[in-house]
């Protein structure tokens, strides 16, 4: 009897979850069958959002989705779009899994019939959803996905329904390499990278290309695997090669650990990184170790353009926003401009309009190039981490904008 009860309990647990999930699951279904260009469903204009709300990347995904909600509220309060129609958001969690992203997008285009999608914040997911976007004729604007193949495939053709508002890995790596060689005048660089991360591999590849093209030498190139916590074997080897700068193109947790360990081993070289660095806990854990390091970022937090958005976010949510907030703000802005220009909430029309609008956002003026669907002429911002003795904390100090001809 007891055994049957326990088993029954387990089954009940699972199915009750299913039912609560069913009734509460996001996205109202528009009727009928799915497939072709979606969008118009009555009075509201539906936009989709996908990203990681759980898992490692959750802090960024959560910030992004909250920003979108905040912006939609604002737009609706000001009268909506297309002459008075309200915007509606349908958001799904991809759990940082490309497979989930495919499922989510399928649901968005067929069930929920959105006219466009914002996000994701990771390249692998953006790559995975290309096929679905193509067959459904719905566009997606990626926020911080940097793999070049997302918008332009191996044969050099542009993917018709993928767009992005951030720079690509080649660009980021080139900026880092260029800045290190031209401005900081370094000749010897070492790299520690994550062999299991597409972001890390891409960044590193293009850094090497640019740095060597400008006359520098890579004196050491060591790898680790995401999830590792001890980098001292690799760092000891790097120390032996005596570099002037060490590139750490990966995410904040490993950055904190490796930076601390590097200093422990007595390495004094400058550290350099990309948009995977900035996060709340980075300073808490490794502030002293990364003081003086340079970060290639999408924009600068202290840019006056950016401040109103920051304050709006802090007021509503009580925490400081991550990069994604600003990127999705601009993606949203571009989308809105395209919707207005298209005149109807039809996904194909919006797609066509996306390359024809120009939007002045907080990260710069954005035009999406026709053959690349990437933002044209956007510069990266180089920041240095310094200790602010007045405020008693670490902060990013804007150095300059730097671009390459990539």
């Amino acid at each position, binding site marked *: 009897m007891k055994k049957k009860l326990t088993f029954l309990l387990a089954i009940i647990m699972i199915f009750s979850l299913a039912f609560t999930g069913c009734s509460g699951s996001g996205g109202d279904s528009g009727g009928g069958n799915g497939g072709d260009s979606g969008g118009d469903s009555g009075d509201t204009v539906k936009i989709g959002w996908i990203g990681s709300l759980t898992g490692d990347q959750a802090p960024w995904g959560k910030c992004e989705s909250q920003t979108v909600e905040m912006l939609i509220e604002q737009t609706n309060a000001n009268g909506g779009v297309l002459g008075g129609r309200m915007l509606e958001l349908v958001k799904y969690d991809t759990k940082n899994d490309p497979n989930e992203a495919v499922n989510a997008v399928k649901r968005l285009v067929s069930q929920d019939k959105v006219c466009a999608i914002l996000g994701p914040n990771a390249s692998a997911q953006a790559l995975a959803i290309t096929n679905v976007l193509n067959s459904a004729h719905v566009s997606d604007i990626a926020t911080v996905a940097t793999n070049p193949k997302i918008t332009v495939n191996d044969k050099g053709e542009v993917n018709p329904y993928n767009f992005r508002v951030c720079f690509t890995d080649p660009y980021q790596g080139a900026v880092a390499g260029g800045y290190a060689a031209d401005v900081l005048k370094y000749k010897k660089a070492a790299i520690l990278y994550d062999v299991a991360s597409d972001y890390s591999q891409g960044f590193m590849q293009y850094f090497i290309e640019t740095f060597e093209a400008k006359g520098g030498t890579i004196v050491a190139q060591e790898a*680790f695997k995401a999830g590792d916590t001890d980098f001292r074997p690799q760092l000891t080897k790097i120390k032996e090669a005596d570099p002037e700068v060490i590139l750490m193109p990966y995410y904040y947790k490993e950055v904190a650990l490796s930076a601390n360990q590097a200093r422990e*081993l007595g390495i004094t070289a400058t550290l350099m990184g990309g948009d995977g660095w900035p996060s709340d806990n980075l300073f808490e854990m490794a502030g002293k170790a990364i003081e003086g390091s340079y970060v290639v970022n999408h924009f600068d937090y202290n840019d006056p353009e950016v401040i109103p958005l920051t304050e709006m976010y802090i007021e509503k949510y009580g925490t400081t926003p991550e990069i994604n907030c600003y990127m999705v703000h601009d993606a949203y802005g571009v989308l809105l401009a395209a919707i207005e220009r298209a005149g109807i909430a039809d996904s194909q029309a919006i797609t066509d309009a996306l390359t024809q609008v120009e939007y002045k956002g907080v990260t710069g003026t954005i035009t999406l190039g026709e053959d690349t669907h990437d933002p044209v002429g956007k510069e990266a911002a180089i920041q240095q981490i310094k200790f602010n003795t007045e405020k008693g904390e670490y902060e990013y100090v804007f150095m300059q904008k730097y671009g390459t001809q990539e």
Partner: protein
Amino acid sequence: MSVFLQQLINGLSIGSIYALMAVGYSLVYSILNFSNFAHGGVIMLGAYFGLYALNLLSLPFMGALVVAAFAAGLVAVGLEKIAYSPLRKRNAPSLYFIISAMGASIFLENFVVATIGPTFKTYPEIFSTTPITFGAISVSRIDILMFVIAGISLAILVFIIEKTKVGLAIRACSYSARGSNLMGVNVNRIIFVIFLLGGMLAGVAGMLFGMKYTVYPQIGVITNKSFIAAVFGGLGSLPGAVVGSILLGLIETISAGYIASQYRDLIAFSLLIIVLVVKPSGLMGKITEDKA
């Protein structure tokens, strides 16, 4: 030369963490012939317990360590009562134990993710992080601390097993549970003690890991390496677990430092296979094949 010495120290340091983790795991295996895959989850909880003991209860270091150890020990005992004991009473095949352990480990890891959250947490700085340097070689203070604490814990464990009555009962059970039962040993109580001891070791390991690196719900995944180390050194042998772990740490470091850092885990894994082929019970393991 100094580079080599530094790498040696790196390897010993990594190995000692594996050792602490592997011993608790091997302890359970040596008595129950069962791989407690949920051990990683207990280690992870140990890290969190230690953190909260320091931050919320404002205990000094030793106090927090003790709290972490006991709390983790209790979790391990609770785990045994809920997930393994019912199976043991029914003489369930070992497959069921493994599956139940897997379920427990998934439960623990995701419970922490769902409640506390996935972002990593850092220990407050109790010991200075400036390393002690001998010329070009640096040893971190935490490493030295870890050696000491690991050494003391293992010494206490060995003392309990070799010199106390409870230890005698444990050793008896490892040879034959049924026989010991016939001789008057309360097997259930012994199992309770074993899991408590294993859990306490896990708690200590977890807290030290958290201090040295950082605290996050997936710490359990690192412990998979320590399982490999335990197998390497010979499942069921406590000295084997320690030796295997230190060796694994050194091999990993040498691979990363002198061969190719991106293939480090691959090399470790290949070595495991080679050892299993050449000496199937591991370096120091005992043969536990049933003979009818």
